């Protein structure tokens, strides 16, 4: 009984609907609310960058489902990232974290790239950056670190910074969209008839959107505590006549995360559907699933209505995920 109560409390802290499976959490960074709260402060702290003006939240804005609205992210030194900033919603369920790097599978590990990476520079930190001195003396951080890592004599470490931010990011669960109410609560009025028809098209053989964007997180690279380990899938989407394979990201909240694709080159959902309907550009590496399909104006409208039904307004405004420094 006690174990069940503890499990339920943890699920509640992770904001999980009962329909979602339990996420996988690294053994060396178990979830606790104090770590997640510290992580929220760090996530929104603009001092955590070389120019003192950028934080994780600069490229992962809550109101944009934790994307930045730009085609490609801009780092703290003004350098443009070659890729679009990915959404962080349901990141706890991602089996692979970057657009095309199969090695980056843990948030604690991936986070070192934006923090310390030089090609391109994102936050532009170094191990001797002022920020890591600030956290030792800052009156806000001192009790947060001590509460998050109570058994450590010196909790103010870079490893603990990454652990705390990862804990916070794993709480950003998007499971309250109209589609969730329709699908899990069986509320037939939650989505429109147009969206329901769009769902049929989405899962149909000719369109086959579900082949890369299936499952409860609408992404094939989804895993949970109950999943068997699998090699991540990457696809050439036929955007260009060149090589390059990318992961199929979650479609949850996709209506508000424009522009689209790995490089933000398609401005609207309409443009994305047109791209896939035409079958993209031919090249030897193009995924065979990008084969084109007939797309009538009504079908396009219905598919977009379905995709809009995946928008979770609650996650965009939930104070648990908002900036604590305000």
């Amino acid at each position, binding site marked *: 009984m006690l174990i069940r109560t503890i499990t339920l409390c943890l699920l509640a802290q992770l904001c999980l609907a009962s329909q979602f499976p339990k996420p996988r959490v690294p053994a060396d960074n178990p979830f606790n609310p104090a770590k997640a709260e510290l992580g929220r402060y760090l996530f929104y702290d603009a001092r955590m960058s070389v120019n003192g003006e950028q934080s994780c939240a600069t490229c992962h804005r809550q109101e944009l489902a934790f994307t930045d609205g730009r085609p490609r992210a801009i780092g703290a030194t003004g350098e443009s990232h070659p890729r679009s900033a990915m959404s962080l919603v349901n990141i706890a369920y991602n089996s692979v974290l970057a657009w095309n790097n199969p090695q980056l599978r843990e948030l604690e590990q991936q986070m070192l790239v934006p923090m310390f990476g030089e090609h391109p520079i994102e936050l532009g930190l170094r191990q001797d950056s002022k920020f890591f001195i600030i956290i030792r003396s800052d009156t806000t951080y001192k009790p947060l670190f001590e509460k998050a890592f109570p058994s450590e004599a010196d909790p103010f470490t870079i490893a603990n910074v990454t652990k705390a931010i990862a804990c916070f990011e794993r709480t950003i669960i998007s499971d309250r969209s109209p589609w969730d109410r329709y699908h899990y609560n*069986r509320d037939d009025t939650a989505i429109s008839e147009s969206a329901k028809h769009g769902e049929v098209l989405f899962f149909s053989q000719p369109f086959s959107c579900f082949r890369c964007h299936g499952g409860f997180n609408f992404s094939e690279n989804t895993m949970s505590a109950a999943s068997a380990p699998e090699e991540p899938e990457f696809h050439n989407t036929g955007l260009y006549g060149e090589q390059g394979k990318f992961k199929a990201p979650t479609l949850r909240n996709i209506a508000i995360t424009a522009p689209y694709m790995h490089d933000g080159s398609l401005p609207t959902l309409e443009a994305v559907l047109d791209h896939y309907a035409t079958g993209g550009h031919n090249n030897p590496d193009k995924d065979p699933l990008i084969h084109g399909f007939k797309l009538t104006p009504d079908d396009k409208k219905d598919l977009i209505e379905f995709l809009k039904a995946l928008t979770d307004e609650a996650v965009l405004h939930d104070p648990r995920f908002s900036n604590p420094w305000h």
Partner: protein
Amino acid sequence: MTNFLLRCALLAALSFGMSAAELIIKGDIASPLVLKTDEIAQMPHETVSVPDKDGSTASYEGVPLREILKKAGVPFGKDLRGKALASYIIAKAKDGYEVVFSLGELDAAFGNESILVADKVDGKPLFEYQGPLRLVCPNDKAGARSVRMLETLELVRLQK
């Protein structure tokens, strides 16, 4: 007049692609069969819990595919031997998707696969994109043969 209007409405609905709530069993069998979904609902059901690779699970209720095929005279048991073993079923969906099952993998004396023609998921009717009927193949590692929007089962005999 009312009947005429109802017929027109039904014809119009079908012509616009609404799902005909029935399952057609046809092909190289003596008497092709059409089962309405409410007839299938009356048949003995089994329940299987199917895990997805993302860790979620769904509980499906339905009628064993073998029992539905038996009802249409598809050979199983003592009748499934010799040339009959060179027979297979094409399961086809409303959207044109097709997969194949051999009779041997379905028969209790051979593969004994417990494939269901499901009409409920987690105790509720299937969603439009899934149903009203779908196959569930609990022992398949991949889900691609669990045909959604199932409309026809066709028997093909390679040897007669």
